[in-house]
C-alpha cells in the first residue's frame, strides 16, 4: 500500500524551526554528564605520566590508600590482571596493534598516559591522593617525529610489534606512469598538516554504576557511539553484553573525539564494577588537552603531472600519519589513510592517482577522528592546485574549472564513486560571481601598489555525506511509535551532541505523520532504547541516513494508524487523509478522528477491530542511504595581512554549498559556520605542540589557542540545491566546513604573500610563520 500524502499546516521541513533542545540548554536545565549524581557516588582522578616514554619501575600507592576518604587505588597491574585488553574493531587487514589496557603497567608511552586511578569521596580528595602516589620511571628515548618513527633503529613503542610502522598501503588508480610520461611539467611539494585537537567545551567523563544485586551495569557518559562503548565495557570487564548499558544525556560537543571508547572509560567502569558503587570521572581541561585525543598529524609528499595549459593529468604521493602511542578504539590510522587515498582525486578528471601510505606510532597522544578525518587529502590537493597555478602563471579559477570532471553521469572519481550530481563547478562559478572576482583582483593590484598585503583564495570540496551508494558504515535504524495519547515517539541510533537532531528528526517525523512538532519526542543515546548502530552520530550520517530511516519508520506506523482509522470510519485507508493531528475521509474533514482516538482504540479496545488489523502502533525501519549523493561546495576568502604583526584579517568569507534540500537552514548554516571557525583556528591558532623529545607543550588554553568572537569573521553562505531524484534529498553538512576552510584560508594567505615568493607548505600559520614567509624575519 502506498500511504496517502500527508496534508495540513504542520509541515516544517525546509524552515528554520526553533530547536527543541534550546528550551533546556538556554535555561541551565541541560543534563550533561557531570550533572548526573547517583546515591553513594565516588569520584575518580588519574595519575598520569609526566614522561613521553619510560619503563615503570615501581608504583607506591600506600600513602594514597591510607588517606582519609580514599575508597580504592588501582594501578596498571591491577587493570592488567583483572580486565581484558581491547582491540580496534575497525582496522584494515595487516594493521598492527597490541591489546589495549586502561592503565599503563609496563611502560608509559606519552605524556598523560594514565598509570593509576584513585577513587575517593570527592574529586578534591582523589586529587590529594594522586599527589601522594610515587611512580618511579626509567626514561627511554622517545619518538617525536616522522623520521624517528620511520627509522628502524629507533626505540620501539610496543616491543611486541617489530616496528613503529603499523600499517602500509599502496593505492593506485588509472595509468599514473603514462600520465607522468606525457606531462609538460611535474610539480612537487611536501605538505605538512600539524597536530590539532577536537576540543569540545565539555571534556570526557562518565559514571559507572554497577548493581551487585541484579548484575546490571550502566555507564552514564557522553559518547557519539553508545553501542560501541557498551560493547567494549562488556568485553573489557567480562560483564554480559545484555546486562551492560551506556546512557548519554546532553553532550557538550565531540567533533569525532567521542566516537571512540577511551581507556579511562574502562578504568572508571572497572572501579565501579569492583567497588559496587557508582564512580564518577570528569576530566579536567589539562587532562583533556594532553590525553583525550588529538588529530591530523600527517605529511604528504605530492607530485603532479601537468600540461602547460593547466591540465592536471595525474597526482602521486607518499603519506605518513602519526597515530600517537595507542590506537583509537575502534577507528585506527589505517582506516583514515584509506579514506584519504579514496577521496583525494576529488571532483577532478585525473587520469592517474597513486598514494603510498604509512601509519606510524609515536610517543604522543592518540590520533583520533576529527570532523572530516580524511581532510588532509582536500587540503593537499587544493593547495597543490594553487601551487601548480602559480608555477604555470595561470589563474586558480581557470585551472579548477579546466580540470573538473564532467557532471553528466559519465565521470567517476578514479577511486570508484560516480561524480554525478556534484555541484563543484557550479559552486565555484557562483562564489566567484558573488565575490565579483575580477573586481577583487583589480582591488588587490591597487592595494599592493599601496603596499598592502591582500590575498584571495578559494577551494572546492566533495563531502561524502553519505556520498553515492555506500553501505560501508551500516544501515541506519529507527523505531517510530504512536503513544496512547496520540503523540509520536522516535527512537534513533543517533547520539546527537549539538547537531539538533531532536529538532530535525522531529521535523521529518511530524511532516510525515501530519502532527505538530511538539507532539513528537526523539529518544536517543541510550542502548536500552535506541536501535543498534556501531557509529551513533558521526560520518555525517544523520541528514540522509537517520532522516531516511525516520521517514520510513514513521510512514510504516502511519500506515497502521490509517488502517485502524479506516476500520473506525468505515472508509478504505487509501481514501483517508492525515494532517494537523487528525485522520479523516478525503474531502470530509468534519468527520475526523484524532490520533489519540485511533491510538486509544488500538491500545484499549482492540477487540473492536478485526483480528487481521495490526494494532502494534510501532514500526522499525532501516535505511541504506538510497542512491546517496555528495555534499559539496566552494569557499572563498579574502584576507589582509599586517606585515608588522603577522596577523591575518578576514575581509570576507564566502561559502557556496550544496547539501540538497535543507531540513532546517539555520541548523545547516550553524554546522557550516562552526566548521569554518574550526578551520580558521586550525590554520592560525591551534597546535597540539610537542617538543623534539615528545614533551607536550600545550597543556592550557593559554597554549592551545581557540578562536573567539573577535577572531571569527562573518561567514556568508549561499545554498545551491541539487536534489537527486530520491525521496530523501537531504545531505549531511557536518564535515564540509572544516574539510575545506584550511585550504581556502592557506590559499588566500599564499596569494597575499606571493609577491614575496612564498609557498605555503605547512598548514599552521601563526604570526611568526607569516612574517617568515614574507621574509620579514628569518626562520
Amino acid at each position, binding site marked *: 500500500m502506498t500511504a496517502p500524502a500527508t496534508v495540513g499546516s504542520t509541515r516544517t521541513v525546509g524552515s528554520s524551526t*526553533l530547536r527543541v533542545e534550546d528550551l*533546556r*540548554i538556554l535555561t*541551565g536545565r541541560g543534563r550533561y554528564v557531570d550533572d548526573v549524581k547517583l546515591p553513594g557516588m565516588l569520584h575518580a582522578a588519574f595519575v598520569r605520566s609526566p614522561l613521553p616514554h619510560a619503563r615503570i619501575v615501581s608504583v607506591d600507592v600506600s600513602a594514597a590508600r591510607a588517606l582519609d576518604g580514599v575508597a580504592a587505588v588501582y594501578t596498571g597491574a591491577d587493570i592488567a590482571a583483572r580486565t581484558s585488553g581491547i582491540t580496534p574493531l575497525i582496522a584494515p587487514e595487516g594493521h598492527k596493534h597490541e591489546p589495549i589496557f586502561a592503565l599503563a603497567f609496563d611502560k608509559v608511552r606519552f605524556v598523560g598516559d594514565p598509570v593509576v586511578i584513585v577513587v575517593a569521596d570527592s574529586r578534591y580528595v582523589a586529587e590529594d591522593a594522586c599527589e601522594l602516589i610515587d611512580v618511579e620511571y626509567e626514561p627511554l628515548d622517545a619518538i617525536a617525529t616522522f623520521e624517528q618513527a620511520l627509522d628502524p633503529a629507533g626505540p620501539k613503542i610496543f616491543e611486541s610489534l617489530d616496528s613503529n610502522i603499523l600499517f602500509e598501503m599502496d593505492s593506485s588508480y588509472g595509468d599514473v606512469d603514462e600520465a607522468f610520461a606525457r606531462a609538460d611539467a611535474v610539480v612537487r611539494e611536501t605538505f605538512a598538516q600539524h597536530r590539532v585537537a577536537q576540543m569540545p567545551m*565539555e571534556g570526557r567523563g562518565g559514571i559507572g554504576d554497577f548493581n551487585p544485586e541484579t548484575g546490571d551495569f550502566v555507564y552514564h557518559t557522553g559518547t557519539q557511539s553508545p553501542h560501541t562503548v557498551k560493547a567494549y565495557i562488556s568485553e573489557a570487564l567480562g560483564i554480559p553484553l545484555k546486562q551492560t548499558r551506556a546512557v548519554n544525556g546532553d553532550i557538550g*560537543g565531540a567533533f569525532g573525539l567521542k566516537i571512540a571508547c577511551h581507556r579511562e572509560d574502562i578504568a572508571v567502569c572497572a572501579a565501579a564494577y569492583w567497588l559496587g558503587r557508582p564512580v564518577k570521572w570528569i576530566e579536567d581541561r589539562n587532562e583533556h588537552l594532553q590525553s583525550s585525543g588529538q588529530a591530523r598529524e600527517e605529511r604528504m609528499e605530492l607530485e603532479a603531472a601537468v600540461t602547460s595549459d593547466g591540465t592536471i593529468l595525474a597526482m602521486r604521493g607518499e603519506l605518513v600519519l602519526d597515530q600517537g602511542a595507542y590506537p583509537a578504539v575502534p577507528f585506527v590510522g589505517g582506516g583514515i589513510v584509506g579514506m584519504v587515498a579514496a577521496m583525494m582525486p576529488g571532483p577532478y578528471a585525473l587520469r592517474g592517482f597513486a598514494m603510498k601510505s604509512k601509519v606510524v606510532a609515536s610517543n604522543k597522544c592518540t590520533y583520533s577522528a576529527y570532523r572530516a578525518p580524511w581532510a588532509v587529502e582536500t587540503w593537499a590537493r587544493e593547495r597543490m592546485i594553487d601551487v601548480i597555478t602559480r608555477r604555470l602563471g595561470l589563474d586558480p579559477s581557470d585551472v579548477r574549472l579546466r580540470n573538473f570532471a564532467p557532471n553528466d553521469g559519465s565521470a567517476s572519481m578514479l577511486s570508484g564513486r560516480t561524480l554525478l550530481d556534484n555541484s563543484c563547478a557550479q559552486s565555484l562559478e557562483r562564489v566567484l560571481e558573488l565575490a565579483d572576482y575580477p573586481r577583487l583582483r583589480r582591488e588587490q593590484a591597487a592595494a599592493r601598489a599601496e603596499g598592502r598585503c591582500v590575498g584571495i583564495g578559494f577551494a572546492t570540496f566533495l563531502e561524502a555525506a553519505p556520498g553515492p551508494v555506500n553501505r560501508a558504515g551500516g544501515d541506519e535504524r529507527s523505531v517510530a511509535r504512536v503513544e496512547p495519547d496520540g503523540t509520536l515517539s522516535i527512537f534513533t541510533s543517533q547520539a546527537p551532541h549539538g547537531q539538533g537532531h531532536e529538532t530535525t528528526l522531529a521535523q521529518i517525523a511530524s511532516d510525515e505523520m501530519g502532527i505538530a512538532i511538539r507532539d513528537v519526542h526523539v529518544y536517543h543515546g541510550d542502548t536500552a532504547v535506541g536501535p543498534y548502530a556501531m557509529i551513533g552520530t558521526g560520518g555525517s550520517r544523520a541528514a540522509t541516513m537517520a532522516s531516511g530511516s525516520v521517514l520510513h519508520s514513521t510512514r510504516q506506523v502511519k500506515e497502521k494508524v490509517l488502517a485502524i482509522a479506516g476500520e473506525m470510519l468505515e472508509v478504505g485507508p487509501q481514501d483517508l487523509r492525515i494532517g494537523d493531528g487528525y485522520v479523516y475521509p478525503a474531502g470530509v474533514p468534519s468527520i475526523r478522528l484524532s490520533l489519540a482516538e485511533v491510538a486509544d482504540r488500538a491500545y484499549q479496545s482492540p477487540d473492536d477491530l478485526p483480528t487481521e488489523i495490526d494494532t502494534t502502533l510501532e514500526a522499525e525501519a532501516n535505511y541504506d542511504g538510497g542512491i546517496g549523493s555528495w555534499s559539496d561546495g566552494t569557499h572563498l576568502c579574502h584576507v589582509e595581512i599586517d606585515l608588522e604583526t603577522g596577523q591575518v584579517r578576514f575581509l570576507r568569507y564566502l561559502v557556496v554549498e550544496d547539501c540538497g534540500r535543507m531540513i532546517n537552514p539555520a541548523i545547516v548554516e550553524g554546522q557550516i*559556520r*562552526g566548521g569554518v571557525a574550526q578551520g580558521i583556528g586550525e590554520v592560525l591558532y591551534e597546535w597540539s605542540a610537542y617538543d623534539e623529545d615528545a614533551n607536550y607543550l600545550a597543556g592550557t588554553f593559554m597554549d592551545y589557542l581557540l578562536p573567539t568572537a573577535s577572531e*571569527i569573521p562573518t*561567514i556568508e553562505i549561499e545554498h545551491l540545491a541539487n536534489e537527486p531524484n530520491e525521496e530523501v534529498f537531504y545531505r549531511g553538512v557536518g564535515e564540509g566546513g572544516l574539510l575545506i576552510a584550511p585550504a581556502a584560508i592557506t590559499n588566500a594567505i599564499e596569494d597575499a604573500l606571493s609577491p614575496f615568493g612564498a609557498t605555503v607548505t605547512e598548514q599552521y600559520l601563526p604570526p611568526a610563520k607569516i612574517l617568515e614567509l614574507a621574509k620579514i624575519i628569518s626562520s
Partner: protein
Amino acid sequence: MTTRDVTIRVNGIERQATTEARRTLVDFLRDELGLTGTHAGCEHGICGACTVLVDGEPVRSCLMLAVQAAGASVETIEGLGTPAELSPLQKSFRDSHGFQCGFCTPGFVMTTLALLRENPDPTEDEIRHTLSGNICRCTGYQSIVDGVQRAARAGIGANAEVVR
C-alpha cells in the same frame, strides 16, 4: 579540612552552607546548591563557561572560591527564564539559533546579560569584544552575536531582565 560557613544570596534567595575553604564557587553552586546550569569548561579562567554574575559583575566561578563570595549576590542561569517561559534574552538567543551543544551557553547568556545591562545598544564590535572572553566550539559565533543584537533590538536593557 578547613571549612567555613558561608551565606550567599543566589538568584535572590539567601543560601547558607558549610563549605571547604578551598571549594571553588562553581563547585559550590553545582554540588552544594544543585545549580548545575553553570558549567566548568577549563577550570583556569579562559573559556568562560562558568561565568556567573557576582554583585552584577561577570565572574569566572572557577577562579573564585565560594568563601570569597560570602555576603555577595550571585546570579546564575537558573535565575532567568524556565523552559516553559524563556526570559526575553533566552528567547532572543533561541530565535537566532544561537547555540548548538549548549555547554558554553550559560556563560554566554550571563556575559550578555551583564553587557546589555551596562550597554543596552552595543555595536557589533562591542558585542564581539565582550564575548571574546567566552569560547564556543560549535557555532563560529555569528549566531550568538545575532542573538545579542536581536535582544538589544528587543529593548532588553537595563531593567528588563529581572532575576526572579
